């Protein structure tokens, strides 16, 4: 195949649709060739609500990407988000008939056993991500294939969501005669390029603030312990400003980006922001501390909700997180790191795709983290899989390929 080393990531976001075309280099690095993009219409809170409009937008974004990179796009890797997605941790176990060397098939069987839990009927599994293997009670066996035992156990982080909603995304892309390589949880994609292996080992929380959703993921000891999607994002901040200051949405968005700050305005000098008259808008003076109060309350609440959700997922998990990495378009909001630090009480860093090369202005922008992450994920999944890399494949959440899952 000619394009074997070309990967295309497609993110159908609430604000924009991005198509990243990237090339895999010999050293496993991803080199970005270009990005196709259109403003998104018909997507609310990360989910498709108007199929026809979204399909048209996706078509435009794909054509844009083809124009810019001169690559004909046949297959894509797709990110998925939405508040219908849910996750939990579960342990699978497999009793072997006799004490023997563990085989690759045993790893598959233990994964299947972990999935033998009741999820709501309309739901389907999206990911089964390995956390750790245990052999005969020996915890955290690094490579079970090299060990012997009679009992294999494994912990998994399992992500599931409503089948019909996931299918909406697939239908939209398939109607454009474009193939789908796999569907990937948005935060899992972002984490591939936003977090370093050291950070994953050390304990990290990644928060990707988008227009319609905020997606987050917790890594402890190199594996995913929790993931979540909150159907709140930058759009909510804009809406709050629009409601609170009685401004049209476009003005509210402008104020948020140009003037707003998420930092607690208590004790700051405040002041007045003058919005000028124009033919369609009667100018007004906006109180800066009111603007910042609106933003601060919303951002603070988003972080509080994430903190509470993580705390309730695994006992004591918060103490194991050493740093918070914030990415996504929403991370560009002024003062956001300060609010996160107050809520999580650990160091916070604003971040974007790393260890990628190519068009700098693209990967330096945090709003492309998910789409770029998809291409990195694609690279990890498709590279030759030997017994050695199997473990890495699993721990990165690259367990099962999409086609196998659709049965």
């Amino acid at each position, binding site marked *: 195949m000619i394009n074997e080393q070309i990967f295309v990531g497609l993110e159908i976001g609430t604000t924009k649709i991005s198509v990243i075309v990237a090339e895999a280099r010999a050293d496993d690095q991803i080199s970005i060739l270009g990005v196709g993009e259109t403003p998104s219409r018909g997507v*609310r*809170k990360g989910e498709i*609500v108007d199929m026809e409009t979204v399909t048209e937008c996706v078509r435009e974004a794909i054509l844009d990407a083809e124009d810019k990179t001169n690559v004909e796009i046949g297959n894509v890797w797709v990110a998925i988000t939405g*508040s219908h997605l849910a996750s939990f941790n579960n342990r699978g176990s497999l009793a072997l008939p006799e004490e023997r060397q563990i085989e690759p098939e045993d790893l598959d069987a233990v994964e299947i056993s972990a999935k033998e839990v009741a999820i*709501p009927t309309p739901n389907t599994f999206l990911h089964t991500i390995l956390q750790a293997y245990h052999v005969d009670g020996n915890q955290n066996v690094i490579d079970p294939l090299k060990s012997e035992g009679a009992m294999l156990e494994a912990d998994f982080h399992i992500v599931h969501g409503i089948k019909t909603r996931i299918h909406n995304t697939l239908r939209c892309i398939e109607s454009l005669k474009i193939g789908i390589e796999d569907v990937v949880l948005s935060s899992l994609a972002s984490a591939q390029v936003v977090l370093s292996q050291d950070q994953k080992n050390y304990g990290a929380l990644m928060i990707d603030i988008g227009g319609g959703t905020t997606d987050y993921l917790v890594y402890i000891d190199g594996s995913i312990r929790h993931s979540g999607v*909150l*159907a*709140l994002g930058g*759009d*909510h901040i804009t*809406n*709050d400003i*629009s*409601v*609170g*200051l*009685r*401004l049209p*949405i476009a003005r509210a968005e402008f104020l948020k980006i140009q003037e707003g700050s998420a930092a607690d305005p208590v004790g700051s000098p405040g002041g007045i922001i003058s*919005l000028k*008259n124009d033919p369609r808008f*009667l*100018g*007004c*003076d*906006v*109180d800066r*501390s*009111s603007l910042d*109060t*609106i933003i601060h*309350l*919303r951002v*603070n*609440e988003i972080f509080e*909700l994430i903190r509470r959700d993580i705390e309730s997922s695994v006992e004591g998990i918060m103490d194991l997180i050493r740093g918070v990495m914030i990415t996504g378009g929403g991370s560009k909001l002024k003062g956001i790191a300060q609010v996160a630090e107050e809520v999580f009480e650990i160091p916070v860093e604003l971040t974007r795709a790393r260890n990628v090369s190519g068009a700098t202005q693209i990967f330096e922008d945090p709003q492309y983290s998910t789409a770029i992450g998809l291409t990195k994920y694609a690279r990890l999944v498709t590279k030759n899989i030997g017994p050695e890399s199997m473990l890495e494949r699993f721990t990165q959440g690259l367990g099962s390929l999409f086609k196998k899952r659709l049965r």
Partner: protein
Amino acid sequence: MNTNPSRRILVGVGNAGVTVLDMLSVEVPGMTGLLAVNNDRDSLNASIVRDKIEVPEGDPGEGFRVIDDEFGQALEGASVVILCGGLGGETGSFLLSALAIRAKSTGLTTMACVGMPFSFEGKHRRDLAERALEKLQEICDAVIVIGNDQLSGGSPSTAAVGEAFLLSDRTLLASLLALTGMLSTSGPVKITRADIHNVLGKPGALTHFGFGKAEGSNRLHEALERAMKSPLLVLPGKGSALKESSMILLLLRGAKDISFAEVQAVVSKIEQIAGENCQIKMGVHADGPLGSSFELHLLTSSGGTLRKPAKTSESIEPNEPIGSKRTALSQPIKPLREEEMPSRHGPLEKGADELFPVFTNSISKSGKKSAAVPKQMQGTLALDTYQRGRFDKSEPTIVEGEDLDVPTFLRKGIKLNPPSRK
């Protein structure tokens, strides 16, 4: 269901009425205060309802005279009587109005829940039904009228005849459950008999009814969507009947954990559809176990004009039976007692208003109100100050029972300096 049998009696009249009560006994096991009245011995024998009155066959007027006393005894201790049955047949059409007059004459709040015949049942039945309905609406404090033809969405149904009747009975049952549910609401968020009268007490009016049931995190939204799809909520050629309503009765029933925010999201959604001049009267039964499904009932009406709730004997013509003989009334009809139709300005209501201004105060946004609706005070937490803005039409983000689409500063009650216009 927490109902007090000493206060409410459901009377199933004729074959359809008895069938509906049987369905009800299956649906809500242990429900008391049910009475089956029919002249069809087979139907009565087959019924699982405990209390039955058999009307002798033959002339309905004569038959009614025979059971008059027995029926009067059955009503003892009740304060509300709801009659249920199908109109169009000889028995139902006559007995429903005769029993209604009898109940009314003892001073009880009298309501009815009736089905109008399908057009395929013929013009004769249709005419009979219409005459009986006119009478019922004149007598009763509230009448739910289910137009069977409407059930198929106005177009000829391809359903089997048996299925059509089953659907008709099921709908009667659902509306009966809605009505009894509304009557038994109590506490700060309740629907009063006066509210029901305002919506369902209009002679000539057609009732619109919607019911939805859902589970899970998005239960309220889904239940509302299902209810809105009810063919009985459609006005032919005009879209949703809610748009034409001046008042809507809304009953929510479900688990203990129904949150303020969820309820609010539903109300504002209905408000959006119904428009500014509509009032929403709500009752909530939040006593189900956690995780139980959530039910939403909507009742409203179109057409007709409201008459005064309290009637005098002069305002009711003695029953003109379908048979030739007049029915003798054992007691003169008394006006409705004051306590049977609680006023919104009664002491209990006032307390509720203060406690829950959002729920009990007017949801009407404009000053234009139906003359029959008492003027109400705007509470400090009135719903229209809550705004979901651009998220108005999207699926709500409910976390920990709060509608997070509503701006944080509003939910936290933070005061802001409004912008000053130049």
